[in-house]
């Protein structure tokens, strides 16, 4: 018989702290039960890190579970994570410090139950981290409850009659599941039982960490591990339990090995010069110039506007155009869309304020100006107009008469005008021009200069320019009349 493996705890492994200062009580002994696999695996990881000479750039993630205090031991950077979230924390750590070696060390409750989503997503993204998955078929820390990996028929405190697979499902084989994903470069299952398998495990651990040091990708190592306390079996028999009971269900294998390629070299991402950040954020190049506002009839000043039509008429863009022009003429503006469900069902509207003063509510409930692009919009909103307000109607789409007699109606055949110019969809810009021309609130020059800022497709700027001009003329004519 070979000597029980837990004797190795007595030697201080390389890569551990000299004394465990973060631990209360005895600072030389690990906190694990005698015969527990965690300590053995810790030691293998620490030794590999030391041999690879990468401790300085290693970040060890402790999970929730018996290994929650991993940071007592590893002389590396340490982060203690919420239950199951280590792969998410590791993703952040690795991506913000791309030169780091991240180790996500997790139990079966942590990884295969509460953290199943985190591990699968991290594996699927191919995060550069080494995951060590300690499968001891039980929740150790909380006192021996059934885990996703508890064997069929195995008794635990929450399955005292043995795991009933009809009730609890069959144990999850994580390696097999992870192997179906494209990204992982190394997936292996090994065991901390028997000298031969323990030796093999040491090599696999080393391989996974080497793969990290070379920045080759996501590695997943499942380690079948003893929990003498949770199982109620003495340490030597626990190793037997692994070999005889666990291995048949969780076969030992290298499931994936795609490490036979060059790693991705770490290229530091240079921080842009502060003076460049505005450019990168596209905050430059909007210098549209200064535009003087014209003299405006007081009744058209400080308009609170609603713009409405059906989806596809460019209602939001029309509102945006008005706000953009107002801003360019040095006024305060706000634009608020109807969004979400309001936008479905074919109608859309937005609220625009253009004001000499600070704007209070951006929400326009009692508009002074309503731009109605179709009949349902007029019917829905003209009742809200304040007495004496202005409604600009796209009469191409509104056969009915306005019901309000106490407001001003400006009728524009916007869709027809746009159609003549080549595209009925430019009706919105005809409306913009008509409003500007009629009220004098916005200068034609401003409207034209605003177009490149709001019209994304550069090929459409010319059409829209014509539409604005045509609308402006119509509006101006109506004003004089």
């Amino acid at each position: 018989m070979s000597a029980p493996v837990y004797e190795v705890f007595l030697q201080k492994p390389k890569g551990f702290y000299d004394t465990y200062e973060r631990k209360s009580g005895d600072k030389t002994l690990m906190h694990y039960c005698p015969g527990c696999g965690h300590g053995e695996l810790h030691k293998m990881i620490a030794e590999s890190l030391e041999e690879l000479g990468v401790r300085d750039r290693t970040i060890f993630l402790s999970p929730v579970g018996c290994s929650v205090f991993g940071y007592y031991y590893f002389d590396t950077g340490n982060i203690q994570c919420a239950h199951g979230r280590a792969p998410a924390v590791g993703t952040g750590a690795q991506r913000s410090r791309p030169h780091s070696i991240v180790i996500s060390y997790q139990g079966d409750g942590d990884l295969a139950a509460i953290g199943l989503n985190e591990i699968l997503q991290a594996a699927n993204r191919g995060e550069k981290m080494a995951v060590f998955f300690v499968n001891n078929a039980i929740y150790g820390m909380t006192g021996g409850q059934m885990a996703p990996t508890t064997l069929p028929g195995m008794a635990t405190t929450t399955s005292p009659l043995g795991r009933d697979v009809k009730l609890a499902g069959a144990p999850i084989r994580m390696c097999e599941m992870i192997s179906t994903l494209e990204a992982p470069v190394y997936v292996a299952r090994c065991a901390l039982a028997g000298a031969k398998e323990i030796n093999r495990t040491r090599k696999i651990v080393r391989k996974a960490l080497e793969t990290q040091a070379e920045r080759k990708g996501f590695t997943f190592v499942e380690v079948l591990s003893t929990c003498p306390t949770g199982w109620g079996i003495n340490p030597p028999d626990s190793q037997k339990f692994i070999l005889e009971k666990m291995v048949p269900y969780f076969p030992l294998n290298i499931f994936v090995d795609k490490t036979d390629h060059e790693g991705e070299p770490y290229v530091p991402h240079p921080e842009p010069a502060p003076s460049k950040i505005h450019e990168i954020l596209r905050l430059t190049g909007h210098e549209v110039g200064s535009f003087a506002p014209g003299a405006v009839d007081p009744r058209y000043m400080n308009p609170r506007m609603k713009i409405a039509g059906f989806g596809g008429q460019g209602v939001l863009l029309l509102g945006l155009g008005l706000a953009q022009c107002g801003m360019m003429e040095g006024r305060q503006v706000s634009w608020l869309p109807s969004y979400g469900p309001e936008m479905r069902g074919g109608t859309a509207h937005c609220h625009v304020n253009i004001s000499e003063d600070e704007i209070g509510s951006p929400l326009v409930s009692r508009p002074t100006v309503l731009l109605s692009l179709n009949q349902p919009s007029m019917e829905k909103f003209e009742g809200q107009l304040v007495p004496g307000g202005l409604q600009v109607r796209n009469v191409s789409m509104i056969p009915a008469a306005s019901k309000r007699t106490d407001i001003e109606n400006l009728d524009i055949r916007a869709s027809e005008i746009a159609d003549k110019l080549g595209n009925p969809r430019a009706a919105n810009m005809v409306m913009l021009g008509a409003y500007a021309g009629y009220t004098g609130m916005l200068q034609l020059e401003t409207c034209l200069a605003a177009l490149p800022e709001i019209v994304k497709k550069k090929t459409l700027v010319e059409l829209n320019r014509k539409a604005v001009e045509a609308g402006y003329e119509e509006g101006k004519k109506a004003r004089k009349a």
Partner: protein
Amino acid sequence: MAQDAGTNVKGALGLPAKRTPILIKGNDAIVKGAILAGARSYFGYPITPASEIAETASRTASSGPGISLKQEGISYCAGAELPCVIATIMRGGPGLGNIAPEQSDYNQVVRIGGHGNYRTPVYAPASGQEMCDLTMAAFETADRYRTPVMIAADGFTGQMMEPVVFPDPIPALPEKDWATRADAATRRNLISSIFLEPDELEEHNRHLQRKYKEIEEKEVRFSEYMIDGAKLVVVGYGIVSRVLRTAVHLAREEGIPVGLLRPITLFPFPKKRLEELARQAKRMITFELSNGQMIEDVRLSIHDRIPVDFYGRMGGNVPSAEECLDVIRRAAKEGGTL
């Protein structure tokens, strides 16, 4: 007379001193503000009405349902003293509710929704400019106090477009000697929220409370409108404060002595200022897009010295200025002596 659309911003980086405002969505202003504040990583998940923040990239943002999920992480960050900035663009709840604006997550955000003895500073922007400026302030506060900081906006402030003048980037925040930077200098560092011994954890919690007290002393922000001589004080934040501004203006024109107090930080809450106002005013009203959550902070601040009424809308309805004006008129009448 030519008017200048540009606004003067003192520039030290060779950027034009006169900067043109840009018409931009609130959510986008948060993103750009975050990057100007030095954020270089963003971890998020799309949710209306906060999606633009995820689409545009750089901290974390979500809305009610997602913020509920983030509570675990926020509590851990508070415990481990990790600075981070979390934006929530509040929508209708509970449950999936809807995507229209509400302020129903006040308690979740301000009173904290995670476990443990912690608080998070909360900034409540009310305009596009503030979406940028307060995001930048949030980063500085998070960094200075090593704490998660929240930005609590609503669907309207997130979706609304207003002109924003973007300031210079913040010079790089100081390097963190406590972080795990994966280098020799920080190898001995530990990020953890575990303090096993009761005395240690109590001391840690006392340390956190001292920090929150300092934040309460130094970081309060609020703004006021027509508060001089106000016998009736209306209190509202975010989009509601914008509606109230209009309502107060209209009410003053009718001769009602009303003024607006707008908390810009929800924690720390402008307690002292409210207490002062409670000596001058006879009555207060809080207006919220909720069932009345901030009102408790107002009542606590003034120790119920004067009556505090509440007017709220829910489900995504935002009261109009006229609606608020009616409430103000009624209160003025009932108040009699106002």
